């Protein structure tokens, strides 16, 4: 199986669902319509052998239309193929369907993307912050977040009285 087969199969299954295909440097990247991502993943896993989700990344394309981008890296172990899927969403409503029902390990990756970028994953079973305290109100990898954080947003324990020395 080659990438041409993969793309032909996807185009047959999702007419109009693929927004862009980019092939460069031996890598294939497919931008799909956001609402289709779970079905695309399901087809890729069940029919095309992409059985391994390596990682999910989130990108802040600040000042662009459709500000946030979610990147999925998939591998078909039996065929030795690596595929990159992308979806985009608007800043005003950053919601992407969760693919945790298809790839269970997406659970923590999606929680990370929610924690760091503030992208919500619809249908995620347990969308909580994964790194930062649960009462933290910001998403620190967004471009507008200041490098040293917002003073007072992360509480520190009080410094004890220096004992008599």
């Amino acid at each position: 199986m080659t990438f041409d087969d993969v793309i032909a199969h996807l185009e047959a299954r999702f007419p109009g669902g693929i927004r862009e295909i980019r092939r460069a440097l031996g890598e294939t990247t497919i931008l799909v319509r956001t609402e289709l991502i779970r079905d695309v993943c399901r087809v890729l896993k069940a029919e095309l052998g992409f059985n391994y989700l390596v990682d999910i990344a989130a990108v802040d394309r600040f000042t662009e239309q459709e500000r946030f981008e979610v990147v999925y890296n998939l591998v078909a172990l039996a065929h030795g193929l690596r595929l990159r899927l992308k979806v985009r969403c608007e800043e005003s409503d950053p919601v992407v369907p969760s693919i945790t029902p298809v790839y269970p390990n997406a659970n923590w990756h999606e929680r990370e993307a929610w924690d760091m970028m503030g992208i919500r994953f619809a249908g995620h079973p347990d969308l909580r912050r994964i790194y930062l305290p649960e009462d933290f109100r910001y998403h620190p990898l967004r471009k507008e977040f200041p490098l040293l954080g917002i003073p007072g947003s992360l509480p520190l324990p009080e410094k004890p009285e220096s004992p008599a020395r």
Partner: protein
Amino acid sequence: MSLEQALRQGFFTTRLEALARWAMSNSVFPMPMGLACCAIEMMAMAGPRYDVARFGSEVFRFSPRQSDCMIVAGWCTYKMAHAIRRIWDQMPEPKWCIAMGACASTGGMHRCYGVVQGADQFLPVDVYVPGCPPRPDAVLHAILEIQRKIRERTEPVFAFPEKE
């Protein structure tokens, strides 16, 4: 037994206070708060090559209740700071604290929202050890500084009740 006799047999006199300080300063049990890469050098210090045992600190105590000196080795995140503070509170008085490495002292290269810019923002640090990571002998020097602090303490070791 007269004093001359006693001295001839190898006795000497001192103040109980000084004796206790001498004993305390030479039995500093560190609490290894290994948080990042610095912890590796802290282990090297405890190992046979640098051998902190020569200075009476050989027992790294993994229970805060048995230790008197916390070595904060590595960068503290805001989330971890609460745990560190709880461990610090469990250590019995008197206690001392070493901020080991650039990160524990100032935040170091981790100049970002998640890392406390210096452990002294929530702990009373006694000795700062510069370096990234500090060499084990630098940490040995910090322990010697703690020992000097213990010997030069003004707080009495024993508090006897006033006589009526």
